[in-house]
């Protein structure tokens, strides 16, 4: 069926048996800090002068801190360059530290399936600067929900994402970004307030206007529902 469209190349380097390319799973030979850098780091440095702000190895995993303005180019190159071939995006997430002076980190975990390599890219967002980074959705389609979740939980805007909406929380969620350190564990609103808001929500709040426009269902709605949808008022309060 799709066998003619395959261009997936098998593993080029590294073997499952005692390979040094594979990430070490047990810390027997692995130092807490230091060790062999992933060779990709030197390649990035050669290709993008000055883009690598810092590179270090923690527990055998290479972390590269990249300039925020150039991270999209770096990831694009890592994906496209046949000698790197980081074709698999494992994860996109962010880290905020308890020390609120420390910058928020946006973290990409990339894998090169052909070369069996793993690398962690980071961008530091200093406090007080706009919380936006470029989206890698145009490189990896798998970034769609990962970036939406990161936006939902941290409020980081991924520029270029086609549909950056809340994912796990509902669209009318008003309490902010739950994984930020200034967000209390129990939430900002009391349980009774949360319950009141949930009960006050209108049925049409479950659908976006775009969804209701399917099959002209929007036109069939009562006038007050249409007015609320038009004005973006969704909770019926």
């Amino acid at each position, binding site marked *: 069926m799709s066998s003619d469209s395959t261009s997936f190349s098998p593993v080029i380097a590294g073997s499952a048996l005692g390979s040094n390319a594979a990430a070490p799973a*047990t810390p027997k030979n692995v130092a807490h800090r230091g060790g062999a850098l992933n060779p990709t780091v030197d390649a990035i440095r050669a290709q993008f002068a000055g883009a690598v702000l810092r590179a270090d190895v923690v527990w055998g995993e290479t972390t590269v801190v990249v300039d925020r303005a150039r991270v999209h180019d770096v990831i694009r190159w890592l994906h496209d360059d046949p000698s790197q071939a980081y074709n698999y995006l494992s994860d996109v997430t962010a880290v905020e530290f308890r020390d609120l002076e420390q910058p928020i980190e946006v973290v990409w975990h990339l894998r090169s399936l052909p070369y069996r390599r793993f690398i962690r890219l980071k961008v530091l967002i200093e406090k007080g600067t706009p919380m936006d980074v470029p989206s890698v959705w145009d490189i990896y389609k798998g970034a769609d929900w990962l970036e939406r979740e990161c936006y939902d939980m941290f409020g980081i805007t991924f520029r270029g994402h086609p549909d950056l909406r809340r994912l796990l929380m509902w669209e009318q969620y008003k309490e902010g970004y739950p994984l930020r350190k200034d967000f209390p564990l129990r939430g900002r609103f009391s349980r009774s307030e949360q319950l009141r808001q949930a009960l006050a929500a209108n049925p049409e709040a479950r659908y976006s206007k775009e969804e209701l426009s399917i099959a002209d269902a929007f036109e069939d709605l009562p006038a007050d529902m249409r007015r609320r949808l038009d004005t973006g008022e969704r909770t019926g309060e």
Partner: protein
Amino acid sequence: MATTKRTVEVSLSTTGLDAQGRPQRVPLVVDEAGNTVALEAPPGMEDEPDLSGDHMLINIGPQHPATHGVLRLVLELDGETVVRCIPHIGYLHCGFEKIGEYRQYNQIIPWTDREDYLNSPGNNVAFALGAERLFGIEITERCKVLRVMACEMSRIISHLVWLGTTCIDIGAFTPFLWAFQQREKIYEMLEAWIGARLTTSLTRVGGMGADIPDDFIPKLSAFVNTFPKVVDEIDRVITRNGIWVGRTVGLGVMSPDEAINYGLSGPMGRASGVAFDVRKDFPYLDYETYDFDVPVGTNGDVYDRFLVRMEELRQSTRILEQTIKRLPDGPVNVDDHRVILPPKSRATSDMESMIHHFKQVMEGPRPPIGEAYLAVESPKGEKGYYMVSDGSSKPVRWRIRPPSFVNLSAIPAMVEGHLLSDVIAINASIDIVMGEIDR
């Protein structure tokens, strides 16, 4: 018209079939107004009268037996063809990652039970491995083999649940009962091992919650000997069954490039021909020393995902056989009382053990400053735990990389162009667990 037997069988129930009698994906086109519509006449149906009209909105879920949890799909239908699929998730969101930032490492292990609750032992092992990398602990040989045992047992459980529920979705009831009978045997073993069936909390940082009981190995050997026969039986009943083939072949096809680009992992990716298995490519727990094969599909459709999972059941049994042979004697936990509680008898009798016990319970073990991402091959795919430590006894950030979350995010690409009834089969083939997706 010369027809094969299979063509006659399935063409009774479905329109839009190809020459082999397989359901065909209807090409979608964009009309002048910019709307996505199905071609007015699907291939082979040019003579049929044109009944196209308004598009229809169908809402499936969040409470629907075929969505395997609280998944909600808003579908735009042109006739019976899906032209757009908008998934909604988050109904089960509990903030696991936030709660993890307020818990010591060993206290997080019960939370890992509850995300992918069909694979609790595997999650426990994955979290413990990640934490041990963060702490810099080398676990004992016996612990490694026991953990492999736990991982493969939970892989069998998870695949059996997948098999049973998917059979029900597609209309076969008998394999569900056979699968759940076998699953019950593993749950009995787990209950004897750790005292819990579903939420096992099997591991601790640096070891296991308990060593296996005396009669565990004979029970596991009996299971390993009888289980392949059951797999063969299910295989005989459904693998070449006309209805099963007709309802699964050619659905939700993902090419290898698409599969990698969408981040599909586990059986989803392997069915598309991507030979990526964390156990082989980035080995942990000495998986590189076990002899097992990674099944890889060719077409990337629902049927191939089924075949891959069936073969993984057999390969997991093979690994279990090897763990029984190689299980060494010796301690299960590391001999390091900064992370492992001393035995209760010593904690009440000698001062040093009591101090260790007190410090661990009250303060918790403290890893050095650093971070670790550890991925394991869960039954659903690459499950990763990313932990960041600032040197305190609680992680700054505990991130779960849920495989079925990423796999599910590709569902619009898989279902668009298919019939409404095929959405159920495609959704089932992803093997989603909403506890893991919403966390």
